[in-house]
């Protein structure tokens, strides 16, 4: 057991700090720090900078363009990125479909898609959920019927984040309607420009447009866009979900949120004193901070297990549950720290035509938007209730 940093680790930390100090664009950093959605242009610009540095895909094997970092280096990088409010790469390409492609895709697919993911040439989105399916993915209804060397896809996906920006979507579709629920599903990569695809915005609780419905009406998809075998898509989907959960704790971001809370508290007044001296506020913040530390070292312990060749079962579910609970407590406390200035709120596009800054102190712009958006954190990627079912079954045998 050892928690120390080697000389190489410390040098690496300096390199990361230097890179972030010189290469992270101020506008990108500002939106990220406030908890606002990135702009499409800003996100791509930043990801291309990351790719130039060779740091776009820390979790990929080196042969496909990964960084080859040790877990200590990954930890250091994540911590420094979080502290500097550097956006993480959008997960849909590099964290979700990328590993599916290099694990289950054929050589052509790897050659075609992986470099474009690394260089952010394609914006990917995820076609999993459907109306009526939610956390019960296996009940999906979107159908793909073989017609020569194409599938003809009909159906509807929902809750598709940033589909309005997307060049590509990876989709679960039913290719055998007679098979049992989890069988008969295939995994397709679909170009969003294919005729027959319609994207319809869903305006969220936060009044912003990040979610969508995606409709497929006789959409022709080349068979070569199928990953792996026909009717084996569930295997790839499960692999992807497992992958997704390991990053979902978002410890580094939450550590930055703790710092922001301290910054805001030092500027806000409560009962005539600084909010940073309010014992009840400090009490709440401290409890979150200690829970976050517990989560951080639990994530490290699990990464250490993986690095030592041990198999995890449902441990990632713990990271998802605790990570999202902490994220929500933090945004809730951020909003609370603003006092009355928690109340004003408009969608960003409402400002677009006006030459006005949001009302209230500068730091009041952001927390409520993130607070509203992150209500979904305990719902998406398998709700926290589903995650507890998984732990109950897989770890406790109940």
């Amino acid at each position, binding site marked *: 057991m050892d928690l120390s940093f080697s000389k190489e680790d410390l040098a690496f930390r300096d390199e990361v700090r230097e890179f972030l100090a010189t290469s992270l664009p101020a506008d990108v950093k500002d939106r990220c720090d406030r908890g606002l959605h990135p702009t499409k242009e800003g996100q791509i610009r930043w990801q291309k900078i990351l790719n130039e540095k060779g740091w776009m895909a820390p979790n990929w094997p080196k042969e496909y363009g990964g960084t080859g970092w040790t877990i200590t280096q990954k930890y250091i990088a994540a911590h420094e990125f979080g502290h500097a409010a550097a956006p993480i790469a959008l997960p849909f390409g590099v964290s979700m479909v990328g590993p599916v492609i290099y694990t289950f895709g054929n050589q052509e697919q790897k050659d075609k898609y992986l470099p474009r993911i690394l260089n952010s040439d394609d914006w990917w989105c995820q076609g999993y959920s459907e109306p009526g*399916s939610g956390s019960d993915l296996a009940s999906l209804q979107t159908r793909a019927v073989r017609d020569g060397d194409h599938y003809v896809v009909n159906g509807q996906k929902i809750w598709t984040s940033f589909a309005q920006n997307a060049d590509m979507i990876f989709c679960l579709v039913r290719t055998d309607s007679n098979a049992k629920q989890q069988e008969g599903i295939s995994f397709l990569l679909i170009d969003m420009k294919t005729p027959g695809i319609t994207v319809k915005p869903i*305006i969220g609780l936060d009044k912003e447009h990040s*979610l969508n419905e995606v409709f497929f009406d006789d959409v022709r998809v080349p068979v070569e866009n199928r990953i792996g075998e026909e009717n084996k898509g569930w295997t790839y989907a499960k692999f992807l979900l497992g992958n997704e959960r390991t990053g979902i704790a978002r410890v580094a971001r939450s550590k930055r949120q703790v710092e922001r809370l301290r910054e805001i508290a030092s500027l806000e007044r409560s009962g005539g004193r600084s909010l940073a001296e309010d014992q*009840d506020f400090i009490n*709440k913040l401290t409890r979150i901070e200690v829970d976050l530390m517990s989560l951080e070292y639990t994530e490290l312990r699990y990464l250490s297990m993986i690095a030592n060749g041990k198999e995890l079962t449902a441990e990632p579910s713990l990271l998802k549950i605790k990570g999202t609970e902490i994220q929500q407590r933090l945004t809730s406390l951020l909003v609370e720290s603003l006092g*009355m*200035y928690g109340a*004003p709120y408009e969608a960003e596009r409402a400002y677009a035509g006006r030459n006005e800054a949001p009302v209230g102190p500068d730091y009041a712009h952001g927390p409520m938007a993130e607070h509203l958006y992150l209500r979904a954190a*305990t719902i998406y990627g398998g709700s926290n209730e589903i995650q507890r079912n998984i732990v109950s079954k897989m770890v406790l045998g109940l």
Partner: protein
Amino acid sequence: MDFELSDEQNMLKDSVERFVKDNYSPEARAKLADTELGFSKDHWKKMAELGWLGLPFSEEVGGFGGTAVETAIMMENMGSGLVLEPFLSTVVMGGGLVAEAGSQSQIEAIIPEVIEGNMMLAFAYAEPQSRFDLNDVETRAAKSGDGYVLNGHKSVVYHAATADKIIVSARTRGGSRDEDGISLFIVDNDTSGLSRRDYRTIDGQRASDIKLEDVKVGSDALLGQEGKGLPVMRSVVDRTIAALCAEAVGAMRTANNITNEYIKERKQFGTPIGKFQVLQHRMVDMYMEAEQSKSMSDMLAMKLELDDEGERRKAVSAAKAQIGQASKFIGEQSIQLHGGMGMTDEYSIGHYFKRLTTIEMLFGNTDYHFKQYAALAS
């Protein structure tokens, strides 16, 4: 000891329920919230016709002579439909301040107009640095000739844009947190030197930040005694909190009903999700929070008419703290139990969540009132 409504009170309740049913379908409410005004002048007229705008005022000035209990009945049932009209700002706060502290001529000039639905009011008490402390006032009113000159910044003034007159707290003497030396002024919205920044709030309502730059008012603008504004503000804010608590009770009950129906209907893995025991128990906890909130809201309305100041203020803080907690819990869990559907602007539950979120915050959040209670109890 009796928690039951009288026949008259039941009639009032039925009448508000009908109004909400007729005018506040989720679609109608969403449409209204998105208009420039943010509420309906027609509804306001209707409320005046029904006599509701005179509810808490004495019969001498044309009111109904109702107590905090009648206000609570009204607010609870308006809360069920997330009613947008500025009853709280105009009647409970603005009208309440005038009725409590106003001179005969001020009362006669304002209250009948409010009751008729011809005049709207707003109350500007908060400031950027004040958080929830009513005594934290840096806006200054300097004596000047026969009148006063006001300078300062008032923040998050609900319904200021549509108010004819804004009641402003300003300091006529003392340091910025002194209890003594705060005065109230009735300021016309179009007075020179008063500028507003109007905006929307997350609960679909309207508010403004107000800058006062050398705003000149006459001596007749002074509401109540000079320097003695705080006790009046406290008393009216206590009534406002009681009204807000009742509104929250109505909003929580409806949010629970919507959620309960949803989990009965929504199927996953082949069964309604309401059959999963974890969701059942969550829903039970939400029900219990709403039940206890109802008890505290009723208790507070009754106590406002009864007890000495210490008991009254303990009841105010206890109720606001308990109901704030419940509002947060029920609001958040309503979204959670709805899953993705709860995250959309189109579906109604999110609007209950957002109104409950602001109620928790307005006039002192949960932590603030626990602290107030602790100070009073020790």
